[in-house]
């Protein structure tokens, strides 16, 4: 796969931004814990200048080009994985464009000004991986749905303006999603602390008789927008090849395939950062009168990490290509890449940390952050076990979950 001149320029500009603006502050920012809303808005403003984000002007260049999306995921994660997560998890904000009037009035100006933060609320305290059977329920009451339930671990929960919430639509006895905007309907949140991805807020959300207009049901958002003559690519601004998979794989699964491919590249970015530091350290640090890079067992570690990166990057690119081509293997490959690359990132950062000896454990050193951030990768967005079951189902046509 070769990047076009445009994609190469995009990557180089992004790298320059990350090196000059994020790299100098990342250690302290991550140590300070979850970024505030204002901090995220500041980063989103910078990223928008590079063509990254969810404003109506930007999103087609970003989500509309699979390569730009995955380049951004890898490059940002090489410097600060938490920033990548806070950015990506904000994507539900883009659906305010076709939501109910009250939501559009409250949120569209914010979205246009790049100040609308989104979150995707899927996981529940009971149920976890079993996302197809949510306990959160939406009951129809006149022209509104009344939402009741609880979500956990939701990225951006505390700072989000809008939440896309998976719930059972009791009126149809079907699973659907509901867009809740905080200007018109409030919900409680509570911070949840975790091992890695320290810079991104994750939280519990409690929906207690939260009322949303019928037009904020996701299937209705879609239906209304299409009835108004909007093209599917305006509603979910994926390339046509990706939305072509909507029939075969279902729209929600296609969104997951897209995001999971991004996660696979995120794991590659973390591994690359750990490898670069380990290689530099190995060439510099001396024991027994030689740089440790001279010792065969250290070279073996570098070999292993580099192999993990190349294999994971290759597989992730294959998943991205499948999306670009609208290949029916896109779901299989995105789960394979997410599962594989995220598992590899744990091994690879562990090996890279070992190359640094005690320095790898030093809290003043980045390596311990790479290791902690990598350790998180195998759980969100479907655990590795769930990715294996998705691949299994795609391969055999038999569902084990």
């Amino acid at each position, binding site marked *: 796969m070769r990047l076009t001149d445009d994609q190469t320029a995009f990557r180089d500009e992004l790298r320059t931004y990350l090196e000059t603006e994020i790299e100098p502050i990342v250690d302290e920012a991550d140590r300070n814990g979850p970024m505030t809303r204002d901090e995220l808005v500041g980063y989103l403003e910078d990223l928008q200048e590079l063509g990254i984000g969810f404003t109506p002007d930007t999103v087609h260049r970003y989500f509309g080009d699979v390569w730009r999306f995955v380049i951004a995921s890898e490059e940002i994660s090489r410097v600060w994985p938490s920033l990548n997560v806070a950015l990506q998890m904000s994507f539900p904000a883009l659906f305010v464009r076709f939501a109910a009037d009250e939501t559009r009035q409250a949120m569209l100006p914010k979205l246009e000004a790049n100040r609308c933060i989104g979150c995707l609320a899927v996981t529940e305290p009971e149920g976890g991986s079993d996302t197809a059977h949510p306990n959160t329920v939406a009951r129809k009451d006149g022209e509104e749905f009344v939402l009741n339930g609880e979500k956990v671990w939701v990225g951006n929960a505390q700072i989000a303006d809008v939440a896309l919430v998976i719930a059972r*639509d009791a009126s149809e006895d*079907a699973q*659907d999603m509901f867009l809740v905007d905080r200007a018109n309907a409030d919900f409680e949140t509570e911070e949840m602390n975790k091992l890695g991805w320290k810079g991104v807020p994750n939280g519990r959300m409690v929906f207690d008789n939260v009322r949303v207009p019928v037009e904020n*049901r*996701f*299937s209705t958002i879609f239906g209304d927008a299409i009835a108004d003559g909007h093209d*599917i690519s305006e509603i979910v601004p994926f390339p046509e090849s990706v*939305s*072509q998979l909507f*029939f075969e794989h279902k729209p929600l699964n296609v969104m997951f395939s897209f995001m999971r491919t991004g996660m696979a590249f995120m794991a590659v970015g973390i591994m690359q950062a750990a490898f670069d530091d380990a290689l530099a350290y190995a060439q510099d640090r001396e024991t027994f009168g030689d740089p440790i890079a001279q010792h065969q067992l250290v070279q073996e570690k570098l070999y292993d990490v580099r192999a993990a990166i190349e294999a994971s990057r290759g597989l992730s690119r294959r998943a991205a290509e499948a999306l670009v081509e609208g290949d029916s293997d896109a779901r299989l490959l995105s789960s394979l890449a997410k599962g594989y690359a995220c598992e590899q990132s744990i091994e690879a950062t562990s090996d890279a940390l070992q190359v640094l000896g005690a320095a790898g454990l030093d809290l003043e050193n980045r390596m311990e952050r790479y290791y902690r951030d990598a350790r998180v990768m195998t759980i969100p967005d479907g655990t590795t076990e769930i990715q294996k079951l998705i691949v299994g189902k795609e391969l055999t046509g038999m569902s084990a979950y």
Partner: protein
Amino acid sequence: MTDTDLIQDIDASLEQSDDELEDDLPELLGRMEGQTEDLVREYPETFGRVVARMETMDIASFVSENPETADQFQELLWAGMNVLVESSPEVKESIDDDITVTFEADDCPMAGHLEVDGTEQTMTGGAGTLDDPMLEITGPADTLVGLIVGRVDPIQGFMQQQYQMDGPVHKGTRLAPIMNSLSDQVPASAES
């Protein structure tokens, strides 16, 4: 026996319980054969009430128990739709693309088709499948009938995975507004 007798009998059956209606339906459908379109054109309210009753009927079990009437049952539905299209400028206006669709139930032996002609601005449906349709829709018979008569919103139903669709996505999204404008014209759904 005149049309009026037949319509009176249909109206009388519509007053009965679902089970009794299901018992009467094969005979009534048989009597309508050959003149369904004319009847729908002349007695739109009765047709509207038949459509409304389909919402409570278990269509899959009816079709499974009366396989020989499945086609007649669909002919009634499609005849009604054909008449609606002919007589409603709103529906005609919404037709701007060529689309062919096959509907196949996955819980009973029922299959139908729809041909939308963008140039002629016509839409005709009937029983049986097409050889090489652009779109293939599969799902429970209740849902498929719901799609045809407007009880199931095509996009919402798809998003909620009430049925499956295969074929080019842009054709599917073009079909949805046409189906919607059609179901807006069904007398029963217009009333509700």
